[in-house]
């Protein structure tokens, strides 16, 4: 069942069209990843979905509520974690959470209990009395996520939850996202970390220059580039002397050397390991490593968008630091 349905969504700023008529749906209970380079229109889309921006055209239905017409009706079902942590600097962690809960009409007893709970779950219990401005970046981010779910929304929008955060905190945040999802919250997240999307998301939409160029499950996307099954062997001796023999003995396979000690064997059918191991054995080669090479979502992204990932990441980090 779809919790969110978006059709023909369009948004311009002056002459510039930031979002050019996009369609997508988010299924209840899934993690949907919105992937795209700088300026693709990710934040603009989230803003339209949550009520910070008005679409020029198109429809948004959230749990059957017409959000373009009456976003206020839908907002108690929505949790938002913006790309910048935006709680109140002067207030401490606990008060920040309790205040956010009050905005959703949650009564004092319940919001205090809930705030305490979340501080614990998010590993912030002993920072409850510190003002928000004294938090580290990672802590700020965690508290902002906690504030986003304090009213138990049906769907949580996360705008680049791990950008600008160290590896360990990012790992914790990803774990929290998974846990929230397991507890039943649908998640819509934007990211420019492809590995993150691949690991975390059930379905992904690629957005480039205001257009969605592809949506699908991670597996579906992988299939596009996974035309071959590839196994990679690394052995102890130079492969040159047996290379020719290999191609003669295994005519159905595509054999490529990576370097003097490593080669890849590809086929459109399943590759079984046994014959190759016997072959190496009989030629007195010892196999150090044999592994299946899987294509990554990165390859899909590059193929679909024509954008080089490294370039995208660098621009991003450079841009954020300014």
């Amino acid at each position, binding site marked *: 069942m779809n919790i969110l349905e978006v059709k023909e969504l369009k948004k311009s*700023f002056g002459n510039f069209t930031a979002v050019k008529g996009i369609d997508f749906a988010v299924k209840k209970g899934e993690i949907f990843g919105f992937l795209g380079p700088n300026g693709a229109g990710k934040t603009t889309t989230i*803003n339209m979905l*949550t*009520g*910070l*921006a*008005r679409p020029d055209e198109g429809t948004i239905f959230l749990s059957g509520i017409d959000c373009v017409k009456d976003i*206020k*009706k839908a*907002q*108690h079902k*929505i949790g*938002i974690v*913006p790309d*910048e942590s*935006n*709680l*109140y*600097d*002067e*207030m401490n962690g606990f008060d920040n959470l309790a*205040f*956010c809960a*009050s*905005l*959703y*009409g*949650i*009564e004092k007893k319940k919001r205090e209990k809930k705030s305490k709970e979340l501080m614990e779950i998010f590993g912030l219990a002993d920072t409850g009395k510190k003002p928000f401005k004294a938090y580290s970046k990672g802590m700020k981010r965690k508290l902002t996520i906690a*504030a986003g779910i304090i009213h138990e929304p049906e769907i949580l929008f996360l705008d680049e939850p791990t950008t600008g955060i160290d590896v360990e905190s990012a790992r914790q945040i990803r774990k929290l996202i998974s846990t929230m999802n397991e507890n039943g919250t649908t998640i819509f997240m934007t990211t420019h970390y492809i590995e993150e999307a691949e690991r975390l998301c059930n379905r992904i939409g690629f957005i480039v220059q205001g257009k969605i160029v592809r949506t699908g499950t991670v597996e579906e996307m992988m299939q596009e580039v996974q035309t071959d099954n590839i196994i990679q062997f690394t052995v102890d001796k130079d492969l040159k002397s047996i290379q020719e023999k290999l191609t003669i003995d295994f005519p159905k396979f595509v054999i490529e050397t990576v370097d003097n000690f490593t080669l890849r064997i590809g086929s459109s059918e399943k590759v079984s390991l046994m014959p190759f191991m016997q072959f190496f054995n009989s030629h007195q080669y010892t196999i150090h490593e044999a592994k299946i090479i899987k294509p990554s979502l990165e390859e899909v992204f590059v193929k679909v968008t024509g954008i080089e990932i490294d370039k995208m990441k660098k621009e991003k980090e450079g841009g954020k630091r300014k």
Partner: protein
Amino acid sequence: MKKWIAFWNILVKDMKNYYLKPPNISWGIIFPFAWTLMFLLRSKSDVDIRDILPGIIAISILFGTTSMLAVTITFERKGRSFERLLLAPIDLNLLMMAKTAGAIIFGIMNAFVPIVFSLFFINLSGVNWISVIVSVVLISVTSTFLGLFIAVSVNEVFEAQTFSNFFRFPMIFLCGLFIPLSQMPVFIRPLSFVLPLTYGVDILKAAINNDGYISMWISFIALILFGLFMFLFSIRNVKRKWIM
């Protein structure tokens, strides 16, 4: 019920975080206090204090509300915490009322500093207290909404500050406080009449010294209309500019 939980908590948070913070509360009290003292020292008899009391009340309110609200809202917009309010399931009118309520209450509190203070020095019998209270509330409301009007017109905190002064200082001189409306040059007078403070000060003058220039009812209605206009205009601008 639920929305009132939000309303109340926004109000309490703003009170705690902004208005009742030591620097602001002292500003709110010291300022009226200093004005009162300054005039007290200058005046030679009781009559004088009573004469200037309406003006001091009005200025105390003005200084406790307009720039205060404009700055706090602009500050929250810069830090983007204001987005939280726009994203909450609270009707925009109620939300803006909650945001302005703190400043209105603070303005009313400021108004009573000179009143209480002058009670120690002069006899305030014969004052029409009901009119005083109503006009204090209305001046507070209109000055706060003027702050809101400024907040929706600027993007930076310093602009909010500058813009507040841009309104505030001419208003002090044109509201009939230093120069009575009746003695104001005819060509300036229309300017006085487009300033809400003029009506507030006039009610206070009528209530405290019985020398109003405009009919009290007209002043009340004018203040209410000013308040309504500025609130609705600001809401419209919030919708247009902050929800892009």
